[in-house]
């Protein structure tokens, strides 16, 4: 520990501000509140603040960030944005430092987010121990009121001088180069600093009525608590304030911002929030978390359970910003969890401490937001609203996908949309996308022609494990556009026919004119190694139809299969699964013999942006292919 007088600390900060090679940021007053902002002078610094409006997260994961700029005027080009200056951030409270440690793990998992880490790694954090706790702060309960790690320098106010803990070589160097009259701490200083730190612990006005370590365990049984979430969210404005001010929230949206030339522009990401109405809505209009109680519940589960199961921490540091920003006063986690605990106690529930999950964060490279360029080499209209596009990557490299994976298709100026790959990996050099005209990207895609260029990111997702299906009988059940992802596996199986047992394909759609891959399906009739059945919901009088009439489940009794040897592979509209699964169960198909591909709003493709989340599952990376036995207990899945 080192000691510096307050005067010399002022000079130190001013010396840092004089340097041109970095931006110096500190806590400044804003109205009757405080905010992190660029410092012009050390006089502006308020190290005795209670809490800032927004956490320092905004400097690493900004409200709005350019992922790349594009130019379509001369062919196509996309380039990454320029580097930004390193930052020195002065006055970060311990809970915000720990929140950044949370963010580090989240942004590192699976694919590392270079935008975040470039800024994070080049920055210097000068923390300050809390001197005044805000009314809603409960960081002491969350173990986040003090911290021994995650800073370069940490300051404790000792009256007329500061104690400085050095947390890194960068901090040490900064101090020795820019600070004058720094001395080693004496025993009395160490002791006073320790007392100050401990004093903070008793300052919280909030009170947990149970040990917060129990939160994950407590949540476990409260998902369907009758009326609980409805009652607590009745006054929710769905304004998103609670998540937007949160130091550990990281959901984002990605969109294009063309300039007026319409040829240049940027793709940006902006903060988003799971409390907002359209967060889980997909282009077809289906909203997977349409009501306020479901979104309100998701926030608590994400913080208290899902992230705990994945990373081993309750993703709340107790800063109290959500509580203080909620106008109807329903966002305070302390109140909600106390209520939940009380109700559980009344019901006689007993809680053991939550079991720490095994955490093994793997990182495989960086997220690449810049798509590869690709050309449409064939465009086959299939129905009034669906078209099959054959696409080739311009760099000549194969896509290298597994059946069931998806890509993000970009049209610069319009945006990006997840599209499942319809062709089998056995088809080399090019791949196919069967696309329904629904949202902005897919509508524009339908207006493009052979020779036009699009952007492709991916492939993403787990895909079907074609290897493990070898030797099995396969029952494909496809509803409507659900044939698109299934076709990648189906064709793969046909191309490796001898590796698989019996193959059934059941396909249903609304009416004959909506049938996809009609000719391909017709040719199946002549194959003896495939049993193909189809149904339409109705057939207009002037059209002919020789298959069945009715919903897809009418086809299941028409085929005879051995439930023990058969794997059912399902894909269709959300409403289909419940009924098909019930019928398969009626035919004694075991749960783990049913696999399915689910549709959600996959935006980033790498388990970060949050839009595709089904409870704790990220469809974009944990799926889109799921074994029924693994998701049947996941309430938002089916």
């Amino acid at each position, binding site marked *: 520990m080192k000691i510096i007088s307050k005067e010399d600390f002022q000079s130190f900060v001013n010396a840092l501000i004089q340097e041109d090679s970095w931006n110096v940021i500190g806590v400044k007053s804003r109205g009757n509140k405080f905010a992190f902002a660029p410092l012009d002078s050390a006089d502006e610094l308020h190290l005795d603040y209670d809490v800032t409006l927004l956490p320092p997260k*905004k400097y690493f994961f900004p409200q709005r960030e350019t992922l790349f700029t594009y130019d379509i005027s001369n062919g196509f080009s996309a380039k990454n944005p320029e580097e930004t200056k390193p930052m020195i951030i002065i006055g970060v409270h311990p809970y915000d430092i720990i929140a950044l440690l949370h963010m580090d793990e989240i942004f590192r998992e699976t694919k590392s987010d270079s935008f975040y880490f470039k800024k994070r790694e080049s920055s210097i954090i000068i923390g300050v121990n809390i001197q005044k706790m805000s009314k809603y702060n409960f960081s002491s309960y969350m173990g986040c009121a003090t911290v021994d790690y995650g800073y370069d320098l940490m300051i404790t106010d000792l009256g007329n001088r500061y104690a400085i803990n050095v947390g890194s070589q960068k901090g040490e160097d900064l101090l020795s180069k820019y600070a004058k009259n720094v001395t080693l701490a004496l025993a009395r200083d160490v002791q006073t600093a320790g007392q100050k730190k401990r004093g903070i612990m008793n300052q919280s006005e909030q009170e947990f009525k149970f040990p917060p370590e129990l939160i994950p365990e407590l949540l476990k049984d409260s998902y369907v608590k009758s009326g609980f979430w409805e009652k607590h969210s009745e006054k*929710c404005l*769905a304004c998103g304030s609670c998540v*937007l001010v949160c130091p550990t929230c990281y959901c984002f949206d990605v969109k294009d911002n063309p300039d007026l030339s319409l040829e240049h522009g940027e793709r940006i990401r902006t903060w988003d929030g799971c409390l907002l*109405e359209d967060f889980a809505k997909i282009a077809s209009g289906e909203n997977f978390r349409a009501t306020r109680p479901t979104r309100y519940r998701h926030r608590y589960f994400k913080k208290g359970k899902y992230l705990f199961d994945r990373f081993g921490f309750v993703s709340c540091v107790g800063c109290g910003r959500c509580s203080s920003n909620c106008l109807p006063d329903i966002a305070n986690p302390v109140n909600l969890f106390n209520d939940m605990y009380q109700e559980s106690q009344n019901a006689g529930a007993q809680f053991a401490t939550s079991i720490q999950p095994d955490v093994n964060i793997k990182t495989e490279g960086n997220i690449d937001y810049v798509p590869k360029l690709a050309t449409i080499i064939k465009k086959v209209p299939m129905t009034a609203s669906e078209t099959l596009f054959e696409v080739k990557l311009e760099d000549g490299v194969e896509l290298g996908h597994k059946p069931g994976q998806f890509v993000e298709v970009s049209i610069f100026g*319009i945006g990006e949309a997840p599209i499942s790959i319809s062709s089998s990996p056995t088809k080399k050099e090019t791949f196919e996308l069967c696309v329904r005209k629904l949202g*902005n990207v897919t509508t524009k895609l339908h207006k493009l022609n052979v020779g036009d260029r699009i952007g492709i990111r991916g492939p993403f997702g787990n895909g079907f494990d074609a290897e493990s299906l070898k030797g099995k009988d396969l029952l494909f059940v496809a509803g409507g556009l659900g044939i698109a992802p299934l076709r990648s596996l189906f064709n793969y199986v046909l191309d490796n026919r001898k590796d698989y047992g019996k193959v059934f394909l059941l396909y249903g759609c609304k009416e004959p004119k909506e049938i996809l891959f009609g000719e391909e399906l017709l040719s199946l009739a002549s194959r003896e190694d495939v049993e193909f059945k189809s149904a339409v919901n109705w057939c207009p009088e002037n059209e002919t139809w020789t298959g069945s009439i009715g919903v897809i489940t009418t086809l299941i009794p028409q085929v005879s299969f051995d439930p023990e040897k058969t794997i059912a592979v399902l894909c269709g509209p959300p409403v289909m699964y419940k009924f098909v699964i019930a019928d398969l169960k009626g035919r004694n198909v075991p749960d783990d013999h049913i696999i399915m591909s689910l549709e959600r709003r996959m935006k980033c493709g790498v388990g970060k942006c949050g839009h595709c989340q089904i409870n704790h599952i990220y469809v974009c990376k944990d799926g889109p292919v799921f074994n029924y036995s693994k998701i049947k207990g996941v309430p938002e899945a089916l």
Partner: protein
Amino acid sequence: MKPKVAFFDFAGCEGDQLQVANLEENLLDLLGQVEVVSFREVMKEHSDNYDIAFVEGSCTRLQDEDRLKQIRKNAKLVVAIGSCAAIGGINSLKNYKDLDQVKKTVYGEHAALFDSYSARPIDAIIPVDAYVYGCPIDREDFLQVVKSLLLGKKPETPTYPVCVECKKNENVCAFERGQFCVGPVTRAGCNSCCVNEGTICWGCRGLIDNPNENSQKEVLIKNGLTVDDAIGKFRLYFGWQEAKR
């Protein structure tokens, strides 16, 4: 060929068209993308041959309906610009008063010479393809909508409230400053411009699709407004929308 655009006004202050005329450094770029064939506020020429019609103002007379229908017939796309055209706007305040009294207040002894009915947004009369909300419209928001339409894209109109932008802009909440704001139920897209300047959100972009009106009114009252004042806060811009809900 550049799409032909035309501007029209109904009951309103023409402040939205003024925002377009004031696009400053973006005006030339915009004119590089579209051909303006009718814009009474800035030019004498007029043509009925246009692709996109921008309509300002609410419909407050029966005879305005025919003109609106004609515009709809002529245009491929109709865009409502400004609160009056998009949500009925401030004109709808009169819908909560006696019409004869309103006419007398405005026209005095000549009241009988003028027609008037309750104010309504233009989509109460004709289908509308896109909306630029605001009183007046935000120039950047207008350009976003125009760029979307030119690219053949449905404009990404926010369904979330102004609070989202306010929080991102790190404003001190109006309620924390002892003021009363309807930002939590008002459609975003303005970049919380009024609160950024230290005032409040008056609600000029209209209610979001699914506002929690009861909770918002409770918040207003809890913070010290009378019930009547809370209702007044909502009526200022949400009058038509509330009556419809």
